[in-house]
């Protein structure tokens, strides 16, 4: 069966992928909450920029490089352990992405491409949760100053 140009097989694995990503994303909650507490000293603009970089990154290493540079340069990223812990969490995502791709039964070039997309999506989801918890525990975030 086909829907337009999309086959039933395509729809099936894409649907499974979406479910898997949602499940992983929901599972990030406790770790993201913990990390957001460590981010309490960070400026709001730093969290915003982190989120922007995560969303704009084309490569996994774009985001990792950004976090490494911020952690090396800014004491607020290193003193609380926020930068190093964030890197630790993100470093586990390629393996998680591989697991998801394996479960979907994808192979070859498609598997590699989906793996790269999945690891970036996982990063974005995690950073999104960190930013949400940060905002929740720091009211006034939208106005650019914490009250």
């Amino acid at each position: 069966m086909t829907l337009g140009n999309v086959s039933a097989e395509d729809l099936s694995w894409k649907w499974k992928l979406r479910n898997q990503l949602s499940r992983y994303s929901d599972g990030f909650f406790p770790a993201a909450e913990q990390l957001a507490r460590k981010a309490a000293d960070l400026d709001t603009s730093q969290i915003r920029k982190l989120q922007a970089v995560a969303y704009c990154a084309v490569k996994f290493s774009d985001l990792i490089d950004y976090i490494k540079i911020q952690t090396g340069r800014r004491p607020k990223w290193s003193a609380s352990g926020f930068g190093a812990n964030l890197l630790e969490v993100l470093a586990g995502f390629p393996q998680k992405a591989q697991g998801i791709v394996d479960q979907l039964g994808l192979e070859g070039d498609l598997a590699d491409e989906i793996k790269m997309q999945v690891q970036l999506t996982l990063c974005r989801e995690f950073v999104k949760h960190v930013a949400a918890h940060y905002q929740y525990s720091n009211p006034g975030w939208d106005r650019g100053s914490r009250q």
Partner: protein
Amino acid sequence: MSQTSQEFASAVAQLQWRFVRFSDSVLVTRAGEFCRKHLFNLRGSQLAQLSGLANAAWASTNQFAAIKYCAHQAEKASRGERAEMYALWSDLERELKAVTAETRKTFDLERVDPAIVEQLPLAAVRDFVRHLTAEYTFRSTNGQKG
């Protein structure tokens, strides 16, 4: 879109994500290993010099500018201006040459469009320098800014 331009777009897209994979794996690993090898050289002023290399890599339209920059720095160091930096710059020159060679081999650049032959090694050099700067900054002492 004609069949030929569709094929071209598809080939470019495939090349793009192959490069992403190459950068995320091979270049990150190489930068990490290089940084570990030259960790003893890590000081604030040297990080500033890496910024000079990054500028050379990004400002130029071919990969040789960054390699020449390293050769020039190594030559300056050998004259005694920054003798302790000689090993770093000469190794970096070798490493960048190895990165371009590996890029050519991985993407089989002998058989593709000459424009791409120039662009991919340059992109690889730029990415390698970016990974290296990030790795060095991460391992350096913290607190230059707020």
